[in-house]
Structure formats: C-alpha cells, structure tokens
C-alpha cells in the first residue's frame, strides 16, 4: 500500500500538457487592454482610493447624516417657533371673538331693554288713555250724581224701607223649592203607608179594600199618615188628636186612641179615597188608583205602587 508521501510524489511528477505553439500568438493577438493612463501616480492614487474609499464613503455618509439632522433640527425649531406664534395668534383671536360676543350680548340686551321700555311706554299710553276715559266717566257720574242730588232735593223724603233679600223665605228661592221637595217626598211616604195599609186590610178581609180610611185605623196607627205636609190644618188637627199616643204603651189602654179616631172625620185628611170596597182578587184592581193627594197629585195603586203626580216615573212599593 502506498503511503501518503508516495502518492504525493506521484501526483507532483505528473506531466504538464503543452499547448500548441500557435496558442501563444492567438492569445497575444486577442489582447484587449484598457486605455493607457500616463504615469503611476494615478495608479497609486487609484490604490489610495481603493483603500480609503470605503472609509471616506462612510465618513461622507455620516457627515451627510449629521448635516441632514442639523437641517431637520433647524427646520423643526423653526416649525416649533411658528407653531408657538400661531398659538399666540389663536389665543388673541379667541379673545377678540370673546370680546365681540360680549359686545353682541350687550347690544342684544340693550335692544331688549329698549323694546321693554317701548312696551312700557305703550302700556303707559294705554293706561293714560284708560285713565282719561275713567276721568271722563267720573266726571259724567259726578254730573249724574249732582243731577240726582238735585232731584232728591226736589222729591220729599219717604220712610219706605227696602227690606233686604230674605234667602230663606223667598217664595221663588232655592230654599223654598227644597222645602217643597221635602214635603213632596214626605207625602209619597204617607201614600206608600196608605197602600201598605190597603194590602194588610185586604189580607184580613178576603181581598176586600175598606170602605173608608177610618176603617184602616189599625193598619194606619195614626191619622197623621193621612195628612200631606202641605195640608197644615189637617196635620195640626191630627197632631193634636194623636198627641197622647204612646207607641210602646200597654195594648189594652187604647181608649184615647179609639177616641181620637172617633173624633177624626170619615175620609178626613189630605188624600182622596178612590178604592173603597174594591176586591183585590180582581186583577184589574192592582192597576186602579185607590188614593190620591189633593195637593201634589201623587196616586197610590191597588198593588201599593205610588206615582208622583209631577213626573211620569213611578216609585216601587
């Protein structure tokens, strides 16, 4: 086996192929050299530039950057100064605008004040005119008063006293109307009690109604029921006759009550007896009038219903 040095020796002893003799001439004929530059100084200069060009280029770039930064810094300073100036101008403008606004507000307020004063003046004029009218009216009234005084001086004095308005006793006043309404309602109640007395009586007498009001003394209890509030004479009579009656007195002590009824006239009172001796078993009787108020015109039917004389509506029993 060959050692490394032996192989290296074999390699170093390799022959070199020789070129053809014409190759050298071809190469010389094909020489294209660059343009000649006289002297070697430039060449040395070229070497100088090749050596220092990167450093010089870097230095120039750095210097350029510094210059650019300086210029930009200068411009920035100028821009900042300009900005400050613009801010000051803006502040000044704002102050001016605020002053103009204040002036505008003052002018508007002055206008409003002037308008208010004008309105006041107009109102004063109107008041003055009204005052003049009033003065004229006063003068006229004064004249009339003077005339009346003159007339009074001519007419003799009379002792006639004009009564003040009596609200409670005015025959056409609301109080009188209210009283009449109360009397009418009391009358309706009396007639309802009379209708009920008719029905009770008929129940105890095979459906027959009584021949007169006095027959229903037990059902009516007192003759005051037979008196309309407007019938003052009968009412005073009934109250006088039945004044003794004790509603809760002993049942066997009815002598005065009987005497009172004995003294009460047949069918006496304010109501007209129209259902005497009618038979309630007759269905027609329910629709017949059995009693009627001579003052209000209220009526009582056979079924006990009461109809007010001054209305079309009816009251249920």
């Amino acid at each position, binding site marked *: 086996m060959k050692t490394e040095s032996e*192989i290296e020796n*074999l390699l170093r002893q390799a022959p070199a192929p020789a070129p053809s003799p014409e*190759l050298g001439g071809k190469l010389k004929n094909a020489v294209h050299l660059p343009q000649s530059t006289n002297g070697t100084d430039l060449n040395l200069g070229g070497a100088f530039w090749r050596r220092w060009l990167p450093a010089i280029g870097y230095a120039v770039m750095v210097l350029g950057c510094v210059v650019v930064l300086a210029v930009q810094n200068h411009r920035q300073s100028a821009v900042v100064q300009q900005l400050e100036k613009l801010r000051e101008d803006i502040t000044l403008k704002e102050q001016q605008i605020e002053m103009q606004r204040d002036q505008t507000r003052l002018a508007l307020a002055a206008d409003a004040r002037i308008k208010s004063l004008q309105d006041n003046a107009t109102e004063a004029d109107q008041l003055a005119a009204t005052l003049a009218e009033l003065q004229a009216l006063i003068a006229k009234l004064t004249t009339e008063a003077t005339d009346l005084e003159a007339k009074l001086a001519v007419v003799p004095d009379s002792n006639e006293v004009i009564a003040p308005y009596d609200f409670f006793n005015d025959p056409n006043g609301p109080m009188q109307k209210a009283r009449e309404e109360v009397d009418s309602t009391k009358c309706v109640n009396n007639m309802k009690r009379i209708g009920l007395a008719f029905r009770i009586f008929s129940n105890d007498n095979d459906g027959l109604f009584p021949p007169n009001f006095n027959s229903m003394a037990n059902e009516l209890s007192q003759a005051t029921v037979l008196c309309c509030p407007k019938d003052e004479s009968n009412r005073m009579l009934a109250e006088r006759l039945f004044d003794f009656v004790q509603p809760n007195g002993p049942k066997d002590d009815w002598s005065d009550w009987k005497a009172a009824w004995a003294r009460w006239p047949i069918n006496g009172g304010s109501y007209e007896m129209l259902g005497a001796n009618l038979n309630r078993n007759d269905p027609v009787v329910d629709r017949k009038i059995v009693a009627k108020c001579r003052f209000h015109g209220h009526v009582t039917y056979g079924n006990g219903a009461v109809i007010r004389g001054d209305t079309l509506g009816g009251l249920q029993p």
Partner: protein
Amino acid sequence: MSDPTSQLIHRAGNGDRAAAGELIDQFHPLIYAYLRRLTGDTSDAEDLTQQTFSKVWQSLKKFEGRSTVSAWLHGIAYHAFADWMRKRRPTENPDAGWWEACPDPLKPFDEIADRDSAATVWSAADQLPDDLRQTIHLHYYQELTLKETADALGIAVSTVKFRISKAIGQLQKELAEPGLKSAASKS
C-alpha cells in the same frame, strides 16, 4: 505588489501590451495545462485558455495584489472552467488519460510498477469529486502553495488541507483496491 509579476499586471492594466505579452508567455502554458487536464480535450482547453486571458484583460484593474498573480490567474481559469461545465456537457469520449497527450509522460519513473502506480493515481485523481479534484490539480499538478490554492478556489487554507487529506485517503484506497470505485460506479 513589488514583485515583477505584479508589476506586469499593473503595466498591462495601464495599457502596456509588452507586459501583457510577457504575462502570456509566462503563464499561458500553465493555464493551458490546468485546463487541458480538467477538460480532457485540447480544443476545449485552448478555448477556455483564451476565455481566461480575455477575462484577465478585463479584470486587470481589479487585481489588488492580495494573492499572487499565479493564484489570481488560476482562480479566473477555475471560474471559466466552472462556467463552461455549467453551460455544456463534457466531451462524450474524453481522452483515456490526459497524460497520454504528453510526450513520454512516464519518463521520470524508472520502474514499471511506479509507472503503473502513477497512471493509476492520476486516473483515480480524475475520478475524485470535483472539489477534491480541483484541489489536487491546483496544489500538486499546478504546484500552487496551500495559500495560493485557497486563494484560487476562494476557500480557507484549512479547507484546502482537509480536502487534500481526504483526497489522498481516497487515492490510497483506490490503489489498495484497484477498480473498486470504477466497478461500483458501473454497477
């Protein structure tokens, strides 16, 4: 940049055709040999040599003297070969061995065994991967130093050392088991 070869570059860069002629005379056999070994064809090698020098004339101003002129020229030739490889396929039937184009290539070797070993090594070197093959060609065939080889290929010196070690190891295996790789490649 004080060495004479670098001065030739700068003179040519300044339009000195004489300096350009001197550069051609000095380096075109070397570049041609490099490209001839790689391409395996004479005409392709000549074309690439012309392309290489054409690019040299265009790049004279870019030479900064960081590497030797030889490494710089080999770098240009290497890139020209790489472009050529990308644009066209290699010759279908390249020479069986580039060394056969040389007059009496095995003359330095006295023993027959060494001659066989040399041909085997050279042939095996051409079968190496491209990165290893380029490194072997530049360092051993073109006799560039490790630094020059690294400059020409645009890689680090440590990478050159690694590639050489790896390539030598593979060549050792090839010599120990001749035909193993070719048989594997055929299968």
